[in-house]
């Protein structure tokens, strides 16, 4: 279980959130939703130590996360990568083996086989020699999921993985997340599309400069919470119209 306790993160001026506490359970897919700029990415970066925090602790299995980063696979929001970098799909996936290779070791046959298998899992096997600049948004996102597969981590964190990708890629990635869940891993997904919340996530965290609500999706995804975190208009569209069609 990942536990974040009393975390405060500020960039230059006012804190993005103060004393935020949250937890993520293994064997579940937990969704994180909240309006733009609510601090979802910051929360992830804070718990990973990618952004310095003013206060708070983050633990995995009751040990500091900072000492167990190799157990966590992180797929950044719209990876701010240089796509012209001279690297192909297979070599990109192979970088997922780096965390578990010792110093001075480079990937060998075993790692390459794992990378090829992961590419098959995300249905990109025939693309392994393609340059990463020659992929669609959905294919690129699947490459990063394949990299997370070879990393073989206990915890997988994806920041807005479904933005700007095709439906097939989204379904393929969702299938992988379910496999991870079956394997007892902790899966955390920042998402912007509220329509998929109830079908995708076991647990849900709603964030707006702090935690608005967290718990099982059916308990948390309520008109009241969405109104608090987003707006009344949005929750009207999501809930009332939904009910109207049921009747």
């Amino acid at each position, binding site marked *: 279980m990942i536990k974040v306790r009393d975390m405060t993160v500020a960039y230059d001026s006012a804190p993005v959130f103060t004393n935020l506490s949250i937890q993520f359970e293994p064997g579940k897919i937990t969704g994180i939703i909240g309006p733009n700029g609510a601090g979802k990415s910051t929360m992830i970066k804070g718990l*990973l130590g990618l952004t310095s925090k003013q206060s708070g602790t983050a633990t995995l299995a009751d040990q500091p996360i900072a000492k167990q980063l190799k157990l966590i696979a992180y797929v950044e929001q719209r990876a701010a990568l240089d796509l012209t970098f*001279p690297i*192909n799909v297979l070599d990109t996936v192979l*970088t997922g083996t*780096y965390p578990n*290779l010792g110093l*001075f070791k480079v990937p060998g046959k075993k790692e390459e086989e794992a990378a090829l298998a992961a590419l098959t899992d995300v249905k990109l096997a025939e693309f392994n020699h393609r340059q990463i600049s020659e992929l669609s948004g959905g294919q690129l996102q699947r490459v990063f999921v394949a990299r997370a597969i070879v990393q073989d981590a206990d915890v997988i964190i994806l920041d807005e993985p479904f933005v700007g990708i095709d439906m097939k890629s989204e379904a393929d990635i969702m299938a992988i997340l379910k496999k991870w869940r079956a394997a007892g891993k902790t899966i955390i997904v920042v998402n912007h599309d509220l329509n998929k919340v109830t079908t995708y996530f076991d647990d849900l965290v709603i964030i707006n400069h702090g935690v608005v609500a967290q718990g099982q999706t059916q308990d948390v995804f309520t008109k009241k919470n969405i109104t608090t975190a987003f707006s009344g208009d949005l929750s009207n569209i999501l809930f009332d119209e939904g009910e109207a069609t049921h009747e």
Partner: protein
Amino acid sequence: MNSIALFIDGLTKYNFLQTALITAILVGIMSGIVGSFIILRGMSLMGDAISHAVLPGVAVAYMLGINLLLGASIFGLLAAMLIGFVTMKSQLKNDTAIGIVFSSFFALGFILISMAESATNLHHILFGNVLAVSDQDLITTAIVLVVVVLFVVLFYKELLITSFDNTFARAYGLKTQVLHYGLMMILTLVTVTALQTVGIILIVAMLITPAATAYLLTNKMSSMIMIAATFSVFASVIGLYFSFTFNWASGPAIVLTAAVFFLLAFLFSPKQGIFIKKRAAN
């Protein structure tokens, strides 16, 4: 044709020319390797900065009679740290911090050198004089090459991932800052060594021009490094020939040769050449 025969004849006869040739080749290899990382990390400006910033170190080393590499390394690393510090502690962009730090270091170095040494020596430091390389310098160059190759071989995957996806590297706990300063240290060593062949002012060209040429020709980082080193060696040897034959300063001769290679790749590279692209578009 005749002059090429003379150059080859000179190579068999003169020890200084042999030393120059070997030095040029060794420096070519190391600058191609390190230059590849410099451009992949978007650090061309940083490469320029560090190479200029070693000047006061060179001057101080002359004055105190200590090893050039030592003096230069201290100032090179100091400049890298100052740039990092100014960027972190102010709202200024990295390129501004680089500009301020390196010009100050260079100015300081210039004044120190003028105090310590004759004008001809300053000219050699600034523009290179590969024909005056001593056997002792050659040994130092060889040692630096070994260090550079070892660094890149041992930390290959770390260099790759921090150049390609630094956030991923940090997220799995890699000490990316340590690697950055390690690379800056290597860059400083290469700078001081390349100073003999091309001089301080033009070192950045040796770092980035062959590497940029290679970048246009391949899609794989390891091939890019090999190709960059190869072009760099060819440019160094051909430049040395021009320097010997026409009595040009070796730095400009080598750099212009490298620039010609780049131009050819820019025009005709199968991957990105502008002629080839045009034809494909038609």
